[in-house]
Structures are given as structure tokens and as C-alpha cells.
């Protein structure tokens, strides 16, 4: 039974999905539904109770929850149908969405689908961290949901594992709720966010330990300590009552997998072209699911861009049957974790995109873009922290010359 038909159905009510919904309505798309599986839309910013959010979107600095509320209000004001407690479990090639709702399973039909289900942090289990499994081990987002949404403090003296931006967000969250982190532990040799940011833990007296391995989590029923091997080989035990595994974001890609869309091993998300189109021409993707992980502002901007493509396609009968040629593949070569988009399609070739990529570890050296014959098309010097987003503009290159695979690689500085 088909409950409702829409022009566009968006899956996921975070910044990317909300901004896409708003933009679609602004561009005259009549029926736009946004399916949010939670009880309210807004996404991850809902439980980041600290600034800075909203500079790019609203021209001022907001906390996460305020930012999320504003986006939701803007979407509602433009006439987006926001369907909360609607969990999409399958997206079919025929534009059919299978949706779990409190009223049972419903089917929604949409001419176009945009998947914007975001990303989550890697779990302790995925990292194969040794030890026992007590209460008090969680990701940053779970901690933030505890304190900002449920008004609860799960621990008082946690160890933070990870040193990305979100790890610093974890420190801010802790400090605003009387939680005093015992240490910040990074398994890699250097901190993963910009080194200057680590003035924050230093100022708060939280030691930052790089090149340290977690030997075991101990305690029952709650965490009592974390055993570490520090850089240099010394073993130590930190008394603590919790462990926060922060960062190492991976896409929330269960729907993409269930719907048999092509997956990129580098991002863990769907393969997309420069317009955000997946391997199914009617299904698009945007936000942190396609590039773990960027700021909310970046996702918001991307949602708008993909919405424009979708709106234009719907408005233009010629584009109603989009070009299904696979286009030119872009391969992440040596030294790179991923490159997004993974394909360049001929349509709209006037707008050469900027590639979004991540290095494996710190990015210091030269990025080299070459074509199928090995000819170097462009190079760019780079020097950035390990998890920092890297941009590689293609503007000015004529990429329609042939259809061979493009390869981008990182040549480390000697």
C-alpha cells in the first residue's frame, strides 16, 4: 500500500537533509518529505550544546541545539513535510521507500530520493580494544545525549580516546557538566586535529598522550581503570570511571547497503558523482555519509547544492531520464584514504568540482592528479593534520577529453 507520493523524499533530518529540503521548497519543488527516524529532526547538532554552529547559515554563532531548532523551524516554514519516527529501511530502484513508523510499515513513493543519514563514531568493538566490557564505555555522541538530552552524567572521571575535533567537543561537554577527563589518549603518533587546538586540554589540565596503546579496559560492573602502553613502552594504569571513544567517523550506511547502492571502501559510504548522485540515478546522497566527517556548515552547504541539482532535474523534462553513463572514475591512490566524489559524469561539465579527500595519517607532501595514461594533470602541495579535510579543485581542467580513470595520490615529502 502506497501511503503517499512525493517529488522528493529525504532520508535523515540533520543539517544536510534539512538544508536540502529547504532549498528544494525554495526552488519550487512542490512535495518534499523529510523522514527522520528519531523523535525530532535536527541531527547531531541537537546534542552538541556548545558553539560554534550557524555562522555560514544564519550569520551568527549558535550552540548546536539552537542551530538545530532554527534549521527545523526553517524547514517547517517552507512547507517541508517533516515525518519524525519514520525510519527508512529500504530505498528501491523504483523510487519506493519502505518506512517503519509507529503506525506500522508504510511505503512512500518519490521521484527522487536523497539519503543524508550522516555518520557515527567508531565503537570500542570495531577498534577491537582489549579488556572487559563494563558500563561507562561510550562514544562522544552518547555522552552528549546523556548530558544535553537526558540531563544525566554517566561518569565523572573518564579517559577520552581520540584527538579529533570531536574529542575536543567531548572535553567541552565534560567541563560544562562537572566531568573531569583524566587524560586524552591518541593511538597515533600525533594529534589528529590541528595542533594549536590542543591548548584547550593543556589549559584544563588534561594530559594528552600520543602514540599510546590501550592495553585493556578494566572494571565490573563499571569502568575502574584503563591500562595503557605509553610512547616509549612504559605501561601504566589510569584510574577512571568511563571511557569515551571519540571520532573515527564512519558513515551511517545501513540503508545504502540494504538498498544495494555501490559502496566506496574508502569512505564506507555510497559512490557518488559530482552532483551527489549514487549508482541509482534517482537516488542522491549528501552530508557526512559521503565524507566522514565535515562540519555541520559544510553539510548544510552540500545539501543545498545537491538540492539544486535535484530541483533542476525535476524541472527539466529532458533530465527526467538522467544520463546513466558511469562517467570517469576518480581513484584514491597511494597515501589517501578517500576521494569524493568518486565519479565525474559528463552532464553539467562546466562546473568542475572540488575534490574532497583525506590522507592516511598526516598529509605532508604533494598531491598528484593523473589520468589513465599516467599524465600528470595537476599537483598541489599540502601540509595538514591527519583528519583535516583536504580540498583539491579541478577548476580549469578539461576533463571531458577522455574517459580513463583519474587517480589522485599523495607523494610524501622526503
Amino acid at each position: 500500500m502506497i501511503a503517499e507520493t512525493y517529488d522528493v523524499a529525504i532520508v535523515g533530518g540533520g543539517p544536510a537533509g534539512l538544508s536540502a529540503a529547504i532549498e528544494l521548497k525554495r526552488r519550487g519543488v512542490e512535495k518534499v518529505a523529510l523522514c527522520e527516524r528519531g523523535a525530532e529532526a535536527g541531527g547531531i547538532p541537537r546534542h552538541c550544546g556548545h558553539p560554534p554552529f550557524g555562522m555560514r547559515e544564519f550569520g551568527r554563532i549558535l550552540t548546536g541545539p539552537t542551530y538545530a531548532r532554527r534549521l527545523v523551524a526553517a524547514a517547517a516554514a517552507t512547507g517541508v513535510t517533516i515525518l519524525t519516527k519514520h525510519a527508512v529501511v529500504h530505498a528501491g530502484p523504483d523510487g519506493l521507500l519502505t518506512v517503519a513508523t509507529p503506525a506500522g510499515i508504510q511505503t512512500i513513493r518519490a521521484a527522487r530520493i536523497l539519503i543524508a543519514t550522516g555518520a557515527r563514531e567508531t565503537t570500542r568493538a570495531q577498534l577491537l580494544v582489549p579488556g572487559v566490557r563494563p558500563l561507562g564505555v561510550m562514544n562522544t555522541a552518547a555522552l552528549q545525549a546523556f548530558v544535553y538530552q537526558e540531563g544525566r552524567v554517566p561518569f565523572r572521571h573518564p579517559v577520552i580516546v581520540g584527538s579529533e575535533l570531536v574529542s575536543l567537543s567531548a572535553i567541552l561537554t565534560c567541563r560544562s557538566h562537572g566531568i573531569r577527563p583524566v587524560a586524552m589518549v591518541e593511538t597515533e603518533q600525533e594529534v589528529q586535529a590541528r595542533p594549536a587546538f590542543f591548548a584547550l586540554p593543556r589549559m584544563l589540565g588534561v594530559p594528552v598522550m600520543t602514540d599510546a596503546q590501550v592495553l585493556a579496559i578494566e572494571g565490573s560492573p563499571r569502568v575502574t581503570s584503563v591500562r595503557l602502553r605509553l610512547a616509549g613502552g612504559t605501561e601504566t594504569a589510569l584510574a577512571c570511571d568511563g571511557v569515551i571513544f571519540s571520532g573515527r567517523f564512519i558513515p551511517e550506511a545501513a540503508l545504502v547497503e540494504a538498498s544495494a547502492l555501490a559502496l566506496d571502501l574508502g569512505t564506507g559510504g555510497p559512490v557518488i558523482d559530482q552532483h551527489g548522485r549514487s549508482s541509482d540515478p534517482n537516488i542522491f546522497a549528501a552530508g557526512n555519509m559521503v565524507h566522514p566527517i565535515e562540519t555541520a556548515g559544510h553539510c548544510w552547504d552540500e545539501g543545498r547544492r545537491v538540492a539544486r541539482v535535484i530541483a533542476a532535474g525535476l524541472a527539466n523534462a529532458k533530465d527526467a531520464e538522467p544520463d546513466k553513463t558511469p562517467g570517469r572514475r576518480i581513484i584514491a591512490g597511494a597515501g589517501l584514504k578517500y576521494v569524493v566524489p568518486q565519479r565525474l559524469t559528463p552532464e553539467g561539465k562546466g562546473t568542475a568540482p572540488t575534490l574532497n579527500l583525506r590522507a592516511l595519517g598526516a598529509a605532508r607532501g604533494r598531491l598528484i592528479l593523473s589520468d589513465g595514461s599516467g599524465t600528470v594533470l595537476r599537483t598541489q602541495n599540502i601540509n595538514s593534520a591527519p583528519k583535516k579535510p583536504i580540498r583539491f579543485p579541478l577548476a580549469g581542467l578539461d576533463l571531458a577529453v577522455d574517459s580513463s580513470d583519474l587517480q589522485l595520490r599523495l607523494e610524501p615529502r622526503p
Partner: protein
Amino acid sequence: MTAFGDPVDAVIIGAGIVGCAMARRFSLEGASVVVIERAPDILSGASKANSAILHTGFDAPPGSVELQCVQAGYDEYMQIRKDFNLPILDTGAMVAAWDDSEEGRLPELLDQALLNGVADARLLSRAEVLAREPALGAHVRAALLVPREVIIDPWSAPLAYATQAKALGAQFRFNAGLLSARLDGRLWHLELPAGTVTARSVVNCSGIHGDTVERILLGEAQFEIRPRKGQFIVFDKAAAKHLRTILLPVPTARTKGVVLTRTIFGNLLVGPTAEEQEERERPDVTRPELDMLFAKAVELVPALAQAQVTAVYAGLRPASEEKHYRVHSLPEKGYFCAGGIRSTGLTAALGIARHVHGLWAQSQAASGKPTVAPQTFTLPNLAEHLPRDWQTPGHDGIVCHCEMVTGREIEAALGSPLPPGDFGGLRRRTRCAMGRCQGFNCLARLASLTEGRLSVPIAPEVDR
């Protein structure tokens, strides 16, 4: 010292799989029962970490108590499962041979299966194996197929046994580790942290602590538990498409070896390791062993190289210094023991319960008590391949999205006759937070939903 009521017919020590099945059998036969458990919930020891396979007994020692109990347990499970809405995933199992020497052992395994009455076991050629399981590593040589080995829900089954026992009048006392015991004439007085239980007999189902408990009761133990740690990796649901049949190794003298199997929850599971150790309280996971398991899974099914890990866990199996079950009794003291149930306990529990109850009944002067009419009820289905609550209208929204657990299911578990005592118990009853995000999205919500309702709360403090 508080005395908990009148003397009962039997105290069952330990609410693992065997203790739950024992409580059910004794209650069904009309005995009054108290179950004492040191942990806050049932299934808190070895029983929470198994491979969830219902075994046929094809490879059990011929003529053994274990074989008898496995087969009786298998039959009884199949007989009662529909009454309780307990699922099976009908997969069959293959003992796969990967080299000459293993292939050479398959005929004797077939002989043993036939001798054990598993008449439908048969050998498969390499081509047949690969036709059935195309994702297997190409170096597979042959296999023994055991069609009736199936996968079950390893937590709902014992929960059903315990809940039925409770419905028939059995009492459960949690956080009730045995401190000391005294046999006074014909009555046992068992001292617990919160009082004393008095009973005419004691059934030791204490798993990893079986010998310790026997020593407390009798002053000495006839057997010695030698804990055997088993670590497991659960792969994400996307990995389950690579395998249908339970994949067993050719067993060694010591262990059934590393199994690769689907779970009834839609995942793929590899494990267990078999690590002898002294430690009884700390089932930790360790990196080299997890790496070994991952590599083993990839060796068996190469496509798993890309698989995502959902969970890792370890359990301590109550192996003893001998390979067989340690079932024995001192009827004159009213003492009965089901010990050393090291690996087939999930299947055998119902059979072990019948066997031990039989020993107990023989010892009773007047065994005139009638069999009680069973109180049956259905458990919520947690199996992925069968209809789940989220598919039924009227649930209060989904709390855990990875495992699609509804608010209604959480509430039902918290309000059930045997409610969870801790977060692990809630997870085992509902699957909440057991999925790929491990609580990233739902942990905080669950802490609020369970406030004041778990004896060990998820988060200790409230900040309002």
C-alpha cells in the same frame, strides 16, 4: 538472619542456562524451588556467550551422558518451542575439511554421527560444498553435512524456561551468591548476603564456580573447573549474506574449534577461541586472539576481509579436568550436581534437567507429587527472519535503530515476570544497543527509560 520462608524441595544454585532449565523441570514436576544467583540477572556467566547452535550430538562421545542430554534437549526444544514462540534458523551445519588430514577424518566423523543416531548426516564433495556455499575459500576439500543443526536465540530460550518456572511458583533470588552452607539432618541451610534459604536438597548448576560451590557445600569437590575462555567476533548484518550453513571445523581432541555461523539476529559470528586459564571473573577480549579470529573468518570466507565488526565478547566456559560432563549426586545428602557443562549446554540444558531431576526423583521417599500443568506463554520474537515488533502498528517508536527495538519492547521487558537486573539483561531480552553503533544513538535514552528499574543502573547519577 532472615529466613526466606518455609523449606523448599530444592535450591538451584546458578541461573545460567542449566539452572533455568533445571528450575523449569523441577517446577513442572511439582517440586518447590528457589533459584539463587550471584549476579543481578539470569545468564550472567558462561551462558551469555555461546555460539547459539542447537546441536544434534553428531560428534558427542557415543554412549555418553552428554550425548543423551544433547539429544533429549534437542528434541524437547523442538517440541516446546512453538508454545513459547522460540525461533530456529534452519541452516544445517557443515564440518568442512581444508586439507588432506582433515578430509581423511570425515568418514570417521560420519561413522560417529551415524552411530549417534544422526542418520541424515552425509558427506559432500568439494563441488557440492561450493554449490551450497559459493563464498567459501576455494581451498575447501569436502564436508560432512549435518542438516538438523540449527541456530536458536540463545537468550530467549533460557528466559522462557526461567519464566515458566517462575509462573509455576519457582522463586528467583539475584545478587545472592552463596556465602556458606550447613546440612542439618535432612535440611540444607544456605547463607546468602540477604538471608538464609532452607531446602531439602541442593542442585549445583554454578557453571564456572561449580567446584567452589561444591566445596562450600560438601567440604571438598569431586571435580575441578578449568576455565576455558572463548572469544567471539560478531560481524555486521551485511556480512551474513556470505554464508547460510553453520561452518564447523574438524574437531580436535580438546575443542570443537572455531565456528563461523550466522546468528538468529541476522549477523555473522566467528569464535570461540579455547584458552585455558585460571581466571574466573574476568572474561576479557585480547587483541592477538581477536586478530586471529578475524583472519580465520577471512580464511574461511574471503569476502569477510571487508566486513565491519559489530561486537566482540568473551565468555568463560566451565570446562573441567576431564572432557565429559560432571553430573553426580549424593542422594543421602540431598546433593545433586550438573557441572563441567563446557560447551553443549545450550542444547543439552533441557536434557540435563530431565536427567538430574530423574536422579533427584529416585531419591525421594514419596514421589507422589503430580506433574503440574505447564503455564505457557509466548516470548517476544527477536529473530531477524521472523516478524518483529517494529513491523506491528502501535509501538511507541524505535529506540534502538540498529536492531530495530521499539519503546514497547523495552517497556515489555522491564515489566516482564523476570525483568532484567542490569543493562546486559535488557540487551539480551530486547537486542537494544547490540547493533553496529553499540549505543551511539540509544544509550542515553535507555538510561532514562530504565531509571530506577535495574538493580545495576546504566548510569549512576542524575544531573538535573
